[in-house]
């Protein structure tokens, strides 16, 4: 174990595990206080209870930015887009080190971890362009073993409640990272309402509209239509035929799978980096899919690449 000099500008993505409020405070209070003392922006994205716990222990809570908006972590692509704009503003205003700490959703804190494994892996590369020190704290008493194991694979170093660091032996670089297998959706076990071979994007959009009307909210249906259209166009342009679209529906839930037999996008960051951050807007389709308020998964398997989209009441 070695101790890092603190307050040094740099790019860090580290994880910490706590088993009590005292351990949580030991991991977050000095991190925030040191940042404030050095005049660095400190951004905290925790729920009300944990934010309150931190506020009560800070000398000057007003010097820390608390993001109470739960939509920040709505989807991984949205979290990256929101932080990106924030980091751009802060660095333009002269920040040379930015500290962030937030609660990635997982089943232990009332969220769903699906997709956040790719986020935790991606930010090691995505935040390279900003002087970001990101500390991700996980409640070891509520996070599932597969979550804790993924955290170890996506953070180069682990910070202990004592303030000491150790490097994560299981860390995998972005290119080597194995995403978690997608959670199966019970709807997929039944026969689809419709199956379309080599459909046009318009055919799939219209099928989603007619099958989904009344099943989910108008906004969700609008987003499913958009997402399905993007997935089909993407498969036809970049995938390998045949392209197959399947739509399932039952009790106010819709699930769509768009499959092609190609290997999927080569870029492990596909769909995570804001399209507006690329001068030519390349990769906008897969990114758009993940910006919508849908359960969206990009699935690589032996038989090809699948975009799975779902909306409505949870499975």
């Amino acid at each position: 174990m070695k101790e890092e000099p603190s307050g040094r500008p740099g790019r860090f993505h580290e994880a910490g595990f706590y088993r009590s409020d005292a351990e949580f405070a030991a991991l977050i209070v000095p991190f925030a206080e040191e940042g404030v003392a050095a005049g660095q922006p400190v951004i905290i994205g925790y729920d009300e209870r944990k934010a309150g716990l931190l506020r009560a222990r800070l000398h000057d809570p007003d010097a820390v930015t608390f993001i109470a908006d739960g939509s920040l972590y709505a989807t991984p692509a949205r979290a990256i887009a929101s932080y990106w704009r924030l980091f751009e503003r802060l660095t333009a205003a002269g920040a040379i080190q930015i500290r962030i700490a937030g609660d990635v959703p997982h089943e232990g804190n009332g969220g769903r971890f699906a997709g956040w494994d790719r986020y935790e892996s991606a930010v090691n590369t995505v935040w390279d362009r900003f002087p970001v020190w990101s500390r991700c704290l996980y409640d070891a008493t509520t996070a599932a073993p597969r979550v804790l194991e993924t955290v170890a694979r996506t953070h180069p170093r682990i910070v202990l409640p004592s303030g000491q660091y150790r490097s994560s032996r299981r860390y995998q670089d972005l290119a080597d990272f194995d995403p978690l297998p997608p959670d199966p959706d019970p709807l997929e076990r039944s026969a689809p309402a419709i199956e379309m071979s080599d459909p046009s994007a318009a055919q799939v959009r219209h099928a989603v509209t007619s099958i989904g009307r009344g099943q989910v909210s108008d906004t969700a249906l609008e987003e499913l239509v958009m997402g399905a259209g993007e997935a089909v166009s993407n498969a036809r342009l970049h995938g390998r035929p045949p392209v197959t679209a399947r739509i399932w529906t039952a009790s106010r839930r819709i699930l769509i799978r768009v499959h092609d037999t190609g290997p999927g996008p080569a870029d492990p960051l596909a769909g995570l980096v804001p399209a507006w951050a690329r001068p030519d807007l390349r990769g906008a389709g897969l990114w758009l899919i993940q910006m919508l308020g849908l359960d969206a998964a990009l699935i690589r398997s032996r038989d090809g690449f699948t975009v799975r989209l779902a909306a409505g009441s949870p499975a």
Partner: protein
Amino acid sequence: VPRVPPSRQGALEASVAPGESGSLIILAGEADLTGAGKLSALIAGQLAGGTRHLTIDASRLRFADSASIRTLVLAGKTLRERGGSLVLLHPQRPVAKVLALLGADQVITILGSPRTTPADGRRAVSSLEISVAAGESGRDVVLAGEADHTSVTRLSEVLDGQLAGPARRLTIDVSELRYADLASVRKLAEAAMTLRDLGGHLVLLHPQPWLVSLLTLLRAEWMLIDGARG
């Protein structure tokens, strides 16, 4: 499992109407992979002429995918580099959503609220309301709702009726006019020119930004200057 036959539903319709200072591109239907070549060729054709301003009426465009919006964003960038602009009028909600997500408002000027046309786009019922009253120094006309091909004859008749009278000052309150197609805006400009030739003037009250944009396209900004004087 039912299978769906191929259909031609959802095709992109595109046309170009000449304006006095740039073209008005009218897009309708659904813009996606199938119409991508058509849209790219149309935009490229317009840009090739060295034009600096393009205006797109998107009021009848029900859907646009990210690739189509990307084509528009890249065109907007080119026009900005030339010191000009790309203006997109009245996008419907799904189109506005893709524009917003892709940050298109950074390079495209988006003006006007969506039309109240039903989502399926099959019915186009004009909801233009025209009322006329005697004002202090001439006649006052109030236009509210949406002016398009279904109302252009009615609009034309009302304006001709006003011009036939002795009053040389016509005030048209357009603050509640939510949409007007190029033909309707042309009618207003023609009436203004006729009045000007007769030594009078037409005053447009409170035009919304999208209408200012269409008047600019017709080189009829002078109507607004007269309005400011009025």
